[in-house]
C-alpha cells in the first residue's frame, strides 16, 4: 500500500469486515486533508454581499451543490481561513463539506421550534439558525461543560438571536419537553472514522468495545430525540463514522421500538453515496435503512457520513 497512514490492527480488521470497503482507497482518502469549505452566514449580511467582499479580497471558491450557502475554497488565503477577519466577524463559518448536509436534510424553516440535541461546537446549530432566519426557537444542547464554551462562542459569532443553550444529558432531554419540537437533529457522538483526516488519533484509538458502548448511547439519544418530536415532525440522525453498529444498527433499533417512525429517503444532489448495509456480521438490519445516506471518505474525498431522516406519524 502506498498510503501515508498506518491503521492499527484493530481498525484494519474492522475495515476488512466491511463488505463494500476498499481499504486502500480509504487509507488514501484519509491521508489527505479535507477540502477547505465554508458557509456564508446570511444572518450577518446577504450572500451576494459576502461573496462580493470575499472576491474583492482575492478569495476563489466554488459552490457546493448540496447546500444552499456552502462553498469550497480553491486558493489559500494569507493566514488561513480560520484566522481570517471574515471568519472572526462571523461572515463565514468554516465547516466540512458533507457536515453541512444534515442541517439541510432537516429542512428547518422560519418560526419552527427546533432542537439540536448534541450541538457543540455549533456548526449545524448556526446553519439551522440561518435556515430559520433567526425566527422561531432553536434549542442547542450539549452534555459537556467543556464543549459548551465553543458552542456559546460560535452561536454568538454568527449572530443567532433565537437560541437557548442548555447543558443536559441528551438521553433524558425528553423528560421536560415531550412532543414539543417541529424538528430535531441528533448529530450523535461517534467513533469518527469518517473524519480521520482531521484527527488520525481518533482512528488509532478505535476499538470494538468503544463502538459498542457508543452505539448504546446513540440509541438512547435517538429515542429521547424522537420523544421530543411533535407528531408530523422530522428528525435527522447523523454521524461522521462508517461503523454499522453506530449507523444502520441504531436506526434499526429506533424502527423496532417506535412503530410510528417512518424513514424517508435522503436525496442529495452532487455527492457520491452508497447503499447502507442490510446485514453485517450476524446482525440483520431493517431493509428500510436503504433510504439513508451513507458515504465513505473516498467517495467524495471528504468526510465519511451517515444520515437518516425520520418522520413521526401525525
Amino acid at each position, binding site marked *: 500500500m502506498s498510503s501515508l497512514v498506518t491503521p492499527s490492527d484493530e481498525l484494519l480488521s474492522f475495515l476488512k469486515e466491511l463488505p463494500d470497503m476498499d481499504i486502500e482507497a480509504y487509507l488514501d482518502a484519509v491521508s489527505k486533508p479535507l477540502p477547505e469549505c465554508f458557509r456564508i452566514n446570511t444572518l*450577518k449580511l446577504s450572500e451576494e454581499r459576502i461573496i462580493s467582499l470575499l472576491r474583492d479580497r482575492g478569495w476563489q471558491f466554488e459552490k457546493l451543490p448540496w447546500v444552499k450557502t456552502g462553498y469550497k475554497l480553491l486558493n489559500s488565503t494569507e493566514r488561513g481561513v480560520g484566522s481570517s477577519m471574515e471568519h472572526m466577524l462571523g461572515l463565514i463559518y468554516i465547516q466540512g463539506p458533507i457536515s453541512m448536509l444534515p442541517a439541510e436534510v432537516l429542512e428547518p424553516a422560519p418560526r419552527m421550534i427546533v432542537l439540536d440535541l448534541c450541538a457543540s461546537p455549533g456548526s449545524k446549530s448556526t446553519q439551522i439558525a440561518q435556515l430559520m432566519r433567526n425566527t422561531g426557537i432553536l434549542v442547542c444542547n450539549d452534555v459537556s461543560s467543556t464543549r459548551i464554551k465553543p458552542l456559546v462562542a460560535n452561536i454568538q*459569532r454568527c449572530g443567532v438571536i*433565537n437560541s*437557548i443553550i*442548555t*447543558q*443536559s444529558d441528551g438521553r433524558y432531554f425528553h423528560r421536560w419537553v415531550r412532543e414539543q419540537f417541529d424538528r430535531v437533529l441528533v448529530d450523535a457522538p461517534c467513533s469518527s472514522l469518517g473524519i480521520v483526516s482531521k484527527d488520525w488519533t481518533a482512528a488509532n484509538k478505535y476499538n470494538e468495545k468503544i463502538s459498542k458502548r457508543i452505539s448504546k448511547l446513540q440509541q438512547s439519544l435517538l429515542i429521547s430525540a424522537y420523544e421530543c418530536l411533535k407528531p408530523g415532525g422530522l428528525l435527522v440522525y447523523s454521524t461522521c463514522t462508517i461503523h454499522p453498529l453506530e449507523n444502520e444498527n441504531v436506526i434499526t433499533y429506533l424502527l423496532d421500538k417506535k412503530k410510528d417512525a417512518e424513514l424517508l429517503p435522503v436525496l442529495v444532489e452532487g455527492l457520491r453515496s452508497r447503499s447502507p448495509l442490510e446485514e453485517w456480521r450476524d446482525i440483520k438490519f431493517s431493509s428500510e435503512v436503504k433510504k439513508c445516506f451513507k458515504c465513505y471518505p473516498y467517495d467524495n474525498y471528504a468526510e465519511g457520513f451517515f444520515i437518516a431522516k425520520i418522520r413521526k406519524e401525525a
Partner: protein
Amino acid sequence: MRGVLTEDEKRRIESLLTSYYGISDGLQDYVVLVGGENRVRITHKEVLEFSWRLKNVVNMGLYVAKLTDEGISLSIEGAQFFSHKIMKNLIEIDMNEAERWMQGIPIRIETQPASKYVVVKCGDIFLGSGRIGRDGFIYPQISKNRLTRKSPDLSKNP
C-alpha cells in the same frame, strides 16, 4: 440590573443606546436580559417563554452590549444588529484599518468625539465598539478570541 429586565429597566438601556449611539426603539420588539459581566442580551419573547420549560439553561439570545462604568459599548454582533439605527458616534474606516482593528490595534482619529465609546464600521461591516483614549486613538473592545492574530506588539497606526 440583572436577569430579565422590567420595562423600566429596558427603557434605561434604551436611553443609554440613544444617548451614546443615537439608536432609538432598538429594543422594543425584544426581551432584554442582563447577565454576567453586565452583558446585555436580547431575544424574542417566545424564546424566553420556551426556556421556562427547559432545565440547565446556560444562556439565550444574542449578546449585544455591555454596561460599563463609563456607559455602554456594543459587541460586534450588537453593532451589526443595530447597524441601521446607529446615528452618532460612528467611525468609518477602510479595509486595511479594519484588518488592523481586528488584530486589536488601536486606530487614530482626527477629531475626538465627546463620547467614551464609538462604533466602528467598514462599509456595511460593523466591527463593534471602540473606547476613546486620551491619546487620540480608538481602542478596539473586541474579546481575545475574536482577534485575528495575537500580536505581541500592538503598535498603533503611524
